[in-house]
């Protein structure tokens, strides 16, 4: 064991769904690690495999029709291949997940306090009074006003932002070391989104957790993560410190993501860098680089041979590209 043990080590993880139309590689050969008390971002568009990756790390898969290979080592516990009974021991206590739609993770016919209570009583063996007191404490922690009264309301009586706070409270009930947040603020208004993201930051510091923030929105991860993974068609195409990925990115797809989204700081009617086409069909991935069909730099090699992740100049910064963008581009883009 090293001095600063890594909380999460993912090695060559692949998740393949067996569909009527053939095997669908939602996640293909992904490796990364996560330190204690670190916030990492996973960005990608729909179908990039970011959500499947998060679910696989969590150990959530449908029972059949899916093959998972590789390894997910969470605090020494191998998630891949573990039975549900074994995974029950880490779910909630070591790793918890919050989803995009808070309504799907809350039981609509159960008072919110009871939903937190239940975790505390069943998983932590608290008695009723202690659980209720802790639940109210948690509701207060996530910034729900007058938590003792809100303890008794149903999820439907809360606004979207408040519901997501309750979901966060349920996730925190078992004091997990890793929180997987899958698009936690998508669908919320900007002012509410800022509140929730600030809350996540605050809680991460207070509870000494690590957070993986899965999102399609580069704005969400820009200032709140230390490291960033960019995914495309089930693979990591670029990974590094958030600054490196934003400023010194080498992969043309990363640039397309960055320059394709309008910015508040740009003047009106700025032409956006739009890459043609759309993400590839995961059932029929091209043999070479998955991004090659949309890439203006693509050469023959890109179409034939898949690039592996290779180190960039800065330590920890890797990218998968045969024709990377130059390192010092200054005011290009």
């Amino acid at each position, binding site marked *: 064991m090293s001095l600063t043990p890594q909380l999460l080590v993912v090695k060559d993880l692949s998740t393949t769904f067996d569909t009527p139309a053939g095997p669908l590689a939602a996640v293909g050969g992904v490796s990364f690690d996560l330190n204690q008390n670190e916030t990492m971002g996973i960005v990608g*568009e*729909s179908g990039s495999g970011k959500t499947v990756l998060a679910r696989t790390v969590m150990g959530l898969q449908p029972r059949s029709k899916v093959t998972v290979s590789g390894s997910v080592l969470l605090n020494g516990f191998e998630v891949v291949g573990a039975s549900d009974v074994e995974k029950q021991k880490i779910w909630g206590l070591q790793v918890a997940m919050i989803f995009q739609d808070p309504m799907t993770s809350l039981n609509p016919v159960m008072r919110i306090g009871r939903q937190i209570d239940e975790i505390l009583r069943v998983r932590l063996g608290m008695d009723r009074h202690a659980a209720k007191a802790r639940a109210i404490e948690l509701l207060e922690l996530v910034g729900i006003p007058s938590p003792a009264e809100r303890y008794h309301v149903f999820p439907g009586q809360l*606004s979207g*932002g*408040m519901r997501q706070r309750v979901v966060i409270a349920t996730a925190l009930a078992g004091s997990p070391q890793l929180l997987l947040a899958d698009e936690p603020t998508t669908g919320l*208004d*900007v*002012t*509410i*989104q*800022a*509140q929730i*993201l*600030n809350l996540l930051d605050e809680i991460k510091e207070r509870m000494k957790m690590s957070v993986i923030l899965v999102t*399609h*929105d*580069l*704005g*969400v991860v*820009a*200032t709140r993560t230390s490291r960033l993974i960019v995914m495309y068609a089930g693979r990591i195409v670029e990974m590094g410190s*958030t*600054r490196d990925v*934003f*400023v010194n990115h080498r992969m043309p797809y990363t640039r*397309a*993501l*960055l320059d*394709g*989204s*309008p*910015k*508040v*700081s*740009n*003047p*009106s*009617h*700025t*032409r*956006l*860098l*739009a*890459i*043609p086409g*759309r*993400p590839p069909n995961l059932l029929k991935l091209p043999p070479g680089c998955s991004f090659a069909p*949309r890439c203006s730099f693509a050469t023959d090699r890109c179409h034939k041979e898949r690039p592996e992740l290779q180190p960039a100049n800065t330590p920890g910064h890797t990218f998968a590209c045969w024709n990377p963008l130059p390192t010092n581009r200054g005011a290009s883009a």
Partner: protein
Amino acid sequence: MSDTRQPLLRVRDLTVNFGSHRHPLSAVAGVSFDIYEGETLGLVGESGCGKSTTGKALMRIVEPSSGSIELEGVEITTQKGKALRNLRTRMQMIFQDPISSLNPRRRAKDIVAEPLDCWKSVEGDERTALVNDLLSKVGIDPIVYGNRYARQFSGGQCQRISIARSLAMRPKLLICDEMVSALDVSIQAQILNLLEDLKAEYGLTLLFIAHDLAVVKNVSDRVAVMYLGKMCEIGPPDTLYDAPEHPYTQFLLGAALEADPDSPLHGEVLVGEPPSPMNPPSGCRFRTRCPFATDKCAAEEPLLVEMAPGHTVACHYPLSLSRT
């Protein structure tokens, strides 16, 4: 500068109420603005602020409760039957959900031809040629994809077909209601660029409704900010984004997440959530969340006041006054 021109669309005191008489919900509570020919007016606000309802009221998809809407000088709120149907050739709308905007059981070319068939404006070869032209304009190959059913297209492609359909009758005004918010970043960029190109080519005037401040700024010549059914501020994007007059605009901008690791970590975050439109606050509707609110804000509703040419704000304490 804009005052000398005749507005293409003139909206005055538009209100839309939903619900029963006993429990009215004022979704839009007296909104006034102009849209000039050839410009893009961006309309931003959070969910429930009434921006989409405003767009739908202009299209008469929801009925305005009071107020006036003039298109090219003609009052349209009172129009009925044939006159109302005729309006559909001059104003068109694109919806948020690209997939639900197209009938899954119809073919792309039939969807685009629908307005032509409704009006029987062109027929036969001319119709086919026009449909093919429209589809090519939006980047859908009519030969390869024309016969495909709507359900076989992705979201981005559906939105392209929607655009082609809305342009078939060559409307003057196009209302875009959150048209890119359901799309992925790379597809969103394609659609926004396409919209700019088509706007120039067809000489369109746009009302671009969206919640994303960056997207709105990108396409707009003027931006209007709404909160809880009221207009807060209207102005040119550069001044409005750099020096907002309304505290709400400032908070909205502060909360917007810029995809830049060096962007300053958000200053003040707006506390609380918008009050219910069933029971809006008296006076200024933003006062319950506004840090600068005083008794005057509760007692008196602020009117839109011109701070600089083309820049109006509805606030008793505009920020430029406190800045100096």
